[in-house]
């Protein structure tokens, strides 16, 4: 079992690669209830100045925490999770989009039994989420 003294600051605890397709976006729209057409219609996305259909920011946020859950073993251990949406993720109709996640230990609060895990989330080599921090209970 993972505890605050079995990890160290700066350690990479999880890494993952996710391939998003237009199918992923439709599935997320239905599951979340976010039916903004910029997430499934190129014509609407382009009419508001976007290159094309984008992934929901909340989908990127939702997938980016999954490697941390796999590492800690229980989704209920995530006590706090925050992100800034700094760059959109365009999802090409044929190619999709590949999002990479690296999760690293940021701080450890031994008294509270909480570790802050910092996520680096990239698409095409560029960061798409800023200040992406997950607080994990390790009690």
């Amino acid at each position, binding site marked *: 079992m993972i505890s605050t003294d079995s990890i160290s600051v700066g350690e990479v605890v999880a890494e993952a690669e996710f391939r998003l397709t237009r199918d992923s976006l439709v599935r997320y729209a239905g599951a979340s209830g976010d039916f903004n057409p910029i997430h499934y219609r190129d014509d609407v996305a382009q009419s508001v100045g976007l290159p094309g259909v984008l992934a929901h920011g909340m989908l990127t946020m939702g997938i980016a925490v999954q490697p941390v859950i796999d590492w800690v073993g*229980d989704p209920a251990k995530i006590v706090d999770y925050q992100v800034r949406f700094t760059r959109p993720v365009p999802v090409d109709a044929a190619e999709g989009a590949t999002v990479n996640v690296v999760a690293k230990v940021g701080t450890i609060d031994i008294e509270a039994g909480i570790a802050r895990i910092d996520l680096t989330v990239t698409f095409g080599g560029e960061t798409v989420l800023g200040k992406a921090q997950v607080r994990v209970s390790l009690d």
Partner: protein
Amino acid sequence: MVPVNSELQGRVFPPTEPYLVGREKIREFSRAVFATNPINTDVAAARAAGYADVVAPPTFAVVIQELTLHQLLSEPDAGIDFSRVVHGEQRFTSTRPIVAGDELTATLTVASAKSLGGHSMVTAESSIVDAAGAHVVTAISTLVVRGDA
């Protein structure tokens, strides 16, 4: 462009109608965010881990938050043009995870509303409680309302 009404700051909206969290909804949402942990989808695994039913992924609270943001965006004097809204930041602070069978009610408070160089930023805090009134999670969303380009 009509600026976002700065008097929104501090406004508290009425609690939303109770939202009953369904097991299949959690499974559907879990698949949509590529969750692979069996506690999200398998009742036996969830019970073995000590939960009454399947546990929602951390970002599931967005489904409940959507109900409060709808209240905010349809407030007649808010001045928030939905077509110009960009999601700037999101945070979830949990007391306990959301579990299938929960009946959740959300109350939105506008934590801040300010204009910065043509853009406006509204931070909405939705406090989500269970049927007993106990805190489950607070969803904090910062919306950026773009000014004229």
